[in-house]
């Protein structure tokens, strides 16, 4: 009944061993890596953590059932192998016998059960546990309808873990390297309570252990000699520096105080290209920058032609070439390219020549009841930031030039903006951005469900909802894919949102840092890197 997923495993193992063999002998004496890491982390409790800075550090400290190879493929982590049942609903994981916590305790299936249960337990107050919804009963536990023990996870013995799903979920293996699924060391959580994540108390099962945490100053992690694959770890120590301001980060990078930056100041892109060639790594990532139309209020309510005209009148190539400038990809679809088991969909006019596009936009604009003599006045609302402002100015200029629209720009502080966007009482056109949580189209598709919390356009299409429900229970990968693709086509046809560009991640990396490979989720494990002589 159980089908061995040998092929997957073999492919993974091959790519993994290749990566290990590539490491050369020409190593620098000091293997200390200094990484710029954005803002100060909010917590190192993997089940409460959210945001990129914390995930970066947690990926070094902890190890999920699966991990990723340097190029982003899912490979065995704390579990050395697994089997998936034919209906795709049951996963049996075999935990490595040599997996150890940093204090020497063995890592067992029970640790994972404890971790997963703690994650969905409402008492923990995890702000990210919804991501575990595919696991049987997880959703009901999070909303307090079922007891924690009813979760679909079970330790068969010390080294065998069974996870039962609500429905087949093709992205489950990728999900299992998310911090909400990490095990935590039960003894130390119970002993230290909320302070278990402090240096000296934190017990972790990843390639590194926590050495020092000075708030707003630095977090230092040190090689964990108990880690099962410790022999292949080269970097001895990683120093994570919280630097919010990207121009300050660039200066410290130039002064030789940083090996990898968290980002770059956009306005210095040309300078960097000229002066630091080869050190800038720009990689497409799973993120979409878009404008939403509020479909619950005029002028966009029941006005498809107007929305379409506005969307067609925006020249995305100009936005990415003249404004964002760092290799962003013009977006004509909602789901970014490069997602597993999915082909990109795009707006029907994407291939139309530009002049024709604008002509069509003008026609639609007139059919919607507006003209140069009777122009539309519309508001663009965005959260305060230089980049968002430039884009809003660019778009309003295009709308004015092509259609004669008058635009009012309103910027608001982040939390005020979110509140207004959610309430849908003030907004007309508004800025949005979404970064996928895992490598699957669903992390984008689900946002536009009528009852989803971030559907701030108020898109309400019974047909779309039905397609997504179908996709959620479909175990045939190809069928699921075509359902999700047709859902996206529907969304684009309805012009509930106007995709503008797909995000890229930008890092400066010193030439002596080796082993880095770009990947779509922008996950870089320090254990895969090394520092060569320089």
């Amino acid at each position, binding site marked *: 009944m159980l089908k061995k997923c040998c092929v997957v495993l073999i492919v993974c193992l091959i790519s993994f061993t290749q990566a290990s063999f590539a490491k050369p002998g020409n190593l620098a004496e000091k293997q200390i890596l200094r990484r710029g890491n954005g*803002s*100060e982390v*909010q*917590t*190192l*409790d993997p089940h*409460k953590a*959210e945001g990129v800075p914390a995930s970066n550090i947690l990926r070094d400290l902890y190890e999920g059932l699966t991990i990723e190879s340097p190029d982003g493929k899912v490979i065995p982590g704390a579990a050395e192998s697994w089997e998936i049942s034919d209906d795709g609903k049951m996963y049996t994981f075999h935990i490595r016998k040599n997996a150890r916590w940093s204090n020497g305790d063995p890592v067992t299936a029970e640790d994972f059960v404890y971790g997963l249960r703690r994650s969905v337990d*409402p*008492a923990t*107050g*995890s*702000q*990210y*546990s*919804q991501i575990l919804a595919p696991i049987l009963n997880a959703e009901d536990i*999070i*909303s*307090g309808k079922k007891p924690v023990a009813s979760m679909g996870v079970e330790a068969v013995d010390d080294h065998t873990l069974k996870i039962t799903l609500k429905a087949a979920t093709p992205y489950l293996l990728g999900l299992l390297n998310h911090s909400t699924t990490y095990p935590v060391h039960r003894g130390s959580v119970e002993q230290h309570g*909320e*302070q278990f*994540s*402090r240096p000296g108390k934190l017990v972790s099962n990843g390639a590194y252990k926590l050495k020092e945490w*000075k*708030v*707003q*100053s*630095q977090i230092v992690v040190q090689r964990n000699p108990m880690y099962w694959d410790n022999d292949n770890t080269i970097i001895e120590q990683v120093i994570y*520096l*919280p*630097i*919010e*301001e990207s*121009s*300050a980060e660039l*200066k*410290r990078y*130039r*002064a*030789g*105080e940083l090996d990898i930056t968290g980002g770059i100041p956009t306005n210095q892109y040309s300078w960097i290209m000229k002066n630091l060639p080869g050190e800038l790594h720009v990689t497409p990532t799973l993120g979409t920058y878009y404008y939403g139309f509020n479909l619950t209020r005029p002028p966009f309510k029941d006005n498809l032609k107007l929305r379409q005209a506005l969307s067609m009148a925006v020249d995305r190539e100009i936005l990415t070439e003249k404004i964002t400038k760092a290799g962003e990809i013009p977006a004509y679809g909602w789901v970014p390219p490069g997602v597993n088991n999915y082909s990109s969909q795009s707006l029907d006019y994407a291939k139309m020549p530009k002049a024709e596009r604008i002509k069509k936009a003008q026609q639609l604009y007139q059919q919607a009841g507006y003209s140069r003599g009777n122009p539309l006045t519309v508001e663009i609302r965005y959260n305060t930031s230089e980049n968002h402002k430039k884009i809003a100015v660019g778009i309003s200029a295009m709308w004015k030039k092509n259609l004669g629209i008058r635009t009012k720009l309103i910027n608001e*502080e*982040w*939390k*005020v903006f*979110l*509140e*207004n966007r*959610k309430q849908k009482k003030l907004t007309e056109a508004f800025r949005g951005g979404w970064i996928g949580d895992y490598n699957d189209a669903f992390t984008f598709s689900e946002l536009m469900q009528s009852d*989803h*919390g*971030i559907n701030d356009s108020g898109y309400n299409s019974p047909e779309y909802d039905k397609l997504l429900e179908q996709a959620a229970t479909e175990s045939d990968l190809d069928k699921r894919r075509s359902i999700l693709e047709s859902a996206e086509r529907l969304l684009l046809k309805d012009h509930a949102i106007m995709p503008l560009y797909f995000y890229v991640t930008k890092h400066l990396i010193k030439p002596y840092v080796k082993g880095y490979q770009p990947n779509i989720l922008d996950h870089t494990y320090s254990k895969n890197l090394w520092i060569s002589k320089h």
Partner: protein
Amino acid sequence: MLRFTLRRFLGAWPTLLILMTLAFFMMRAAPGGPFDTEKTLPPEIQANLDKKYHLDEPLLKQYGRYLLDLAQGDFGPSFQYKDYSVNELIAQGFPVSLRLGGTAILLAFFIGCLLGTIAAIRQNTATDYTVMAAAMTGISIPNFVLAPLLILLFAVHLGWLPAGGWNDGALLNTILPITALTLPYVAYISRLMRSSMIEVLRSNPIRTARAKGLPEHTVILRHAMKPALLPVISFLGPATAGIITGSVVIEQIFGIPGIGRFFVQGALNRDYTLVMGVVVFYGILIIAFNFIVDVVYALLDPKIRY
């Protein structure tokens, strides 16, 4: 003097209470809460978080609870930095801000007074104009321009000093931020000192001193200095409180773990307890320094009697 001290001490409490009350309710009036993110939380989790931080109680009750905790010296847990309490965050950040700010204000005081006095004695000479032109430049160039320039020159191009980071307060790491913090204050204090010194030098007691035939340095150091310092002292009170509670700009640019950043981050994240903690802490310092200024005033100025 004792009665005066006591009166001032007791008078400080209502001020602090008003400050706290205003800050508490203004913070709550801002749209959005500490746990609002782009993602919408399931109601059950939201309820649990609210309960844990007592956000589910009526506002007045929360206020009362806050005051009670505060009376015991407890600022509460941080909403944003979930692994730390506000007390811990302030205890980590304040020594850093104190050291930077304290050094900067002391330096600014000595250099500023010296330059101001020199300019006043050489009034309307080339020396005076040079010092005042430099001071004017110092006042007009904001921190966020000066600091990156210093970094570019001394860290990136010359490589003499680190571009940022605290490194547990190693001397080399403090030089640039202290310089960037000090210069505008030097400029301000020297202008203040110059004008006040000029005024004092024209006063009757100084004319008398000169008429007695005292040497010029005695006139200046023994007789003019004390009264000329008064405006500088009254400026110094709030300035010290301001500078030792951290400069957001300098901390941001140099990556220094002081408490200035907590204030801004806390406000943006609606981290109620953290903002309140910093506000109350700042309030106490301002009141304390104003109090010290009053006492020093009384010591310096024989005209003031209590």
